[in-house]
């Protein structure tokens, strides 16, 4: 096998079949045979599964036996297994960076249909890697210490669970929530499917535990505005919005609310989906955490257009008395936090039902969204759990629930929101229980994939809820005839696909099971934290199976409904996973960083300052004594922008040096 070569470079090449994933479209033995003819290649093999233990051991054995000093593996994406193979190369006694990976699965066998073409492509990519690896230099992995404190953004059930897990493990956690209270969507529910256990009973203890945990700093009514630094050493700027209450001094007695100059609640209550009213000074819901009120400058008499006028007689301040918790001069403040890891749990928003005008939301008062019903059936809701229609008194006698509103529809959201079937049944049950009304559910497919979920469906069938399979065409108040008792009702027109005819069914109340979608500011949050979004707008995980709570930014994790539609059990499980990933990093104490940083060769730099302003991390500074530019490698993140721009070629980027890339170019183009 040995053939003479001028240099002392000895490359071992391996092409992986990946079972048949690669081998079905790429002639692996032919690739191996071809690569054998390339310069410096001492050994070339094809193998069934390179990433398996035997595959990795093969590399190690060959390094010893054939005195290899460079290794190339042609298999899947480097984003998946580069780490694995570098590990194998290192275990074989070589510097792990004397390795190059060729992506012939994601970029080749999986996307092409002509075996000859795919094989030719694999050969060219392999040749590029063989030429490139000869240029590789030994590099050292940088170990960056991890700051032990963590940040959790979003205080829904996901954020709460993640923060508690970390805090219970003894880590200091900052929990940032943009609303006055944590709790997220779950705080709005009365019961949760399928167990029908009281949501508050599960959530409230968790919320107050967060509020009192010595390791958790709860920053409610706050938002992250800036992120600096890098994994292990992030600096986060948090904007604390003025709530005009000094949190430490407020006891949550709510005397201020009672004594507000507005005797009656008058303003739209967001927490109750607008079904209730609140005063300018308010607490979103009884169990709110922190137990601190907030003053809304938009409605408070002491402000005008958000500006302080001091025109109110401020009976709240009087009521608060010597607690002196109210401070109308409060300003926005900014807080800088140092953390090592970040978990993003910013949740979801529900589909805007007005986007489907055929269902009449906003037009017919008695068409409701599911979230509104959650509040209506809630004992601590605006009606104390008394289900009445918008007139405030009439109980509905017949209720129609429409599934999949906004979901599974090419015109709106294509995905299944996963929870609507289940929560619709929960609401059907609760509504029936509260009102005794006839309840109909209109579904496309009944999706009950979860522990106890199908059983829940069976129970509902027994309870006498009517299930009609069919996508609802429209909701209308137009009565076809008086006999049918349609007059004054909301008529659902639907094709009953089981019975096989179009039906018109009159209801007092219609409930729209709106689906889950990404928060409207998801793109901003994504940018802030350097993440990606999938095409539906939810945050993108690094890998759906191998790294479901990781993102492409090291040290930043995601959990809960911000990553995709899911229910509470899955959300909590995921939050636990994210916390475990963060803990693993924190407890390891350091992270190994890709050594792809750039450096300037001092005697080559002419001090032209072309590179100076290009670095987004201000890693490049000018040494005024030497009149040369210098890169602080601790700050450099390895983008290579300055390298490409240095007009005298005086900047080198490890792992992506000019010579390495030029040899890759040559490799993919050298004609056979």
């Amino acid at each position, binding site marked *: 096998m040995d053939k003479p070569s001028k240099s002392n470079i000895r490359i071992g090449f391996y092409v992986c079949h990946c079972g048949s994933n690669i081998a079905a479209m790429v002639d692996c033995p032919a690739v191996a045979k071809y690569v054998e003819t390339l310069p410096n290649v001492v050994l070339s093999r094809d193998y069934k599964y390179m990433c398996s233990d035997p595959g990795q051991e093969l590399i190690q054995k060959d390094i010893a036996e054939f005195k290899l000093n460079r290794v190339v593996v042609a298999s899947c994406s480097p*984003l998946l297994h580069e780490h694995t193979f570098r590990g194998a190369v290192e275990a074989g006694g070589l510097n792990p960076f004397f390795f190059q990976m060729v992506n012939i699965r994601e*970029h080749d066998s999986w*996307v092409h249909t002509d075996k000859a*073409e795919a094989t030719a492509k694999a050969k*060219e990519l392999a040749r*590029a890697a063989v030429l490139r690896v000869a240029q590789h230099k030994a590099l050292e992995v940088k170990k960056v210490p991890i700051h032990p404190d963590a940040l959790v953004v979003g205080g829904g059930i996901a954020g709460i669970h993640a923060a508690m897990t970390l805090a219970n493990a003894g880590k200091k956690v900052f929990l940032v929530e943009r609303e006055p209270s944590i709790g997220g969507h779950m705080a709005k529910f009365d019961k949760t499917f399928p167990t029908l256990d009281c949501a508050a009973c599960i959530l409230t203890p968790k919320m107050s535990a967060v509020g009192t945990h010595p390791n958790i700093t709860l920053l409610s009514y706050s938002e992250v505005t800036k992120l600096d630094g890098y994994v292990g050493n992030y600096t986060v700027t948090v904007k604390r919005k003025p709530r005009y209450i000094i949190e430490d001094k407020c006891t949550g007695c709510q005397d201020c609310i009672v004594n507000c100059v507005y005797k009656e609640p008058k303003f739209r209550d967001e927490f109750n989906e607008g079904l209730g009213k609140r005063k300018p000074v308010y607490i979103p819901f009884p169990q709110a955490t922190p137990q601190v009120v907030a003053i809304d400058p938009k409605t408070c008499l002491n402000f005008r257009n958000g500006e302080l006028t001091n025109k109110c007689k401020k009976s709240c301040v009087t009521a608060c008395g010597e607690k002196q918790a109210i401070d109308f001069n409060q300003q926005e403040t900014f807080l800088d936090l140092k953390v090592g890891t970040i978990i993003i749990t910013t949740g979801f928003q529900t589909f805007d039902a007005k986007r489907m005008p055929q269902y009449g939301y906003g037009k017919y008062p008695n068409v409701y969204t599911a979230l509104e019903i959650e509040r209506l059936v809630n004992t601590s809701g605006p009606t104390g759990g008394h289900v009445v229609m918008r007139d405030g008194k009439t109980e509905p006698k017949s209720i129609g629930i429409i599934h999949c509103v906004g979901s599974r529809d090419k015109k709106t959201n294509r995905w299944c929101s996963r929870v609507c079937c289940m929560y619709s049944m929960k609401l059907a049950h609760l509504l029936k229980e509260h009102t005794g009304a006839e309840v109909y559910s209109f579904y496309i497919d009944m999706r009950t994939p979860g522990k106890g979920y199908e059983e829940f469906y069976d129970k509902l069938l027994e309870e006498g809820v009517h299930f009609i399979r069919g996508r609802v065409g429209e909701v209308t108040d137009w009565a076809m005839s008086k006999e049918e008792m349609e007059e004054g009702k909301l008529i659902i027109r639907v094709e009953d696909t089981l019975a096989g005819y179009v039906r018109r069914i009159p209801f007092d109340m219609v409930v729209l099971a709106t689906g889950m979608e990404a928060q409207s500011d998801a793109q901003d949050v994504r940018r802030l934290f350097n993440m990606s979004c999938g095409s539906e707008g939810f945050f993108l995980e690094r890998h759906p199976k191998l790294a479901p709570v990781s993102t492409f930014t090291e040290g930043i994790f995601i959990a809960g409904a911000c990553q995709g539609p899911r229910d509470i059990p899955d959300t909590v499980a995921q939050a636990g996973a994210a916390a475990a990933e963060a803990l693993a990093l924190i407890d390891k104490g350091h992270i190994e960083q890709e050594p792809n940083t750039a450096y300037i060769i001092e005697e080559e730099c002419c001090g032209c300052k072309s590179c100076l302003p290009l670095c*987004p991390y201000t890693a490049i500074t000018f040494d005024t004594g030497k009149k040369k530019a210098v890169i602080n490698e601790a700050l450099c993140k390895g983008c290579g922008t300055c390298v*490409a721009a240095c007009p005298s070629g005086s900047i080198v980027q490890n792992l992506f040096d000019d010579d390495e890339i*030029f040899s890759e170019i040559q490799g993919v*183009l050298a004609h056979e």
Partner: protein
Amino acid sequence: MSEQWQPRIVAFFCNWCTYTAADLAGVSRLKYAANTRVIRLMCSGRVDPQFILDALAKGADAVLIGGCHPFDCHYAEGNYKCLRRFQLLKRMLKDMGIEEQRVRLEWISAAEGEKVKRVINEMTETIRALGPLGIPQKFAAWDQEMEAFAAHVEAGEALKTPCSAHAPQQEPAHV
């Protein structure tokens, strides 16, 4: 392999968006033309115009650069730096006789596996219609005059007959 002439496209994809999108295209088993060879860089800001020239000179019929959308670059603004270089380079290449369609810059996010497929297929079609660029062959053709002349001198002909590699410097027609 199909009989049709296959253009060679060299692509420089940034690690965070476009390379990941190409991985996604794979995972989604989308099918696209097999004549693009991707070279992974950390950011489109790393794309040195020399790489593009070098790829063309070494036989690429076209070069594709893929980076993150504006505001989305993993390193804040590498993609803008790439865009600015690209605009002047494109004009310069035109002055050097290279059709604009042969260099293309696309913003492709990690979620846009479909776009990888579309762009590569489109580009393959465009370049196929344009035909080969063939710079290495041009270099060889250009240098034939030199080889031919060297042979001519070698044969001791230099002082006797003009070298056939050079079209005669004809008299203008009108004289």
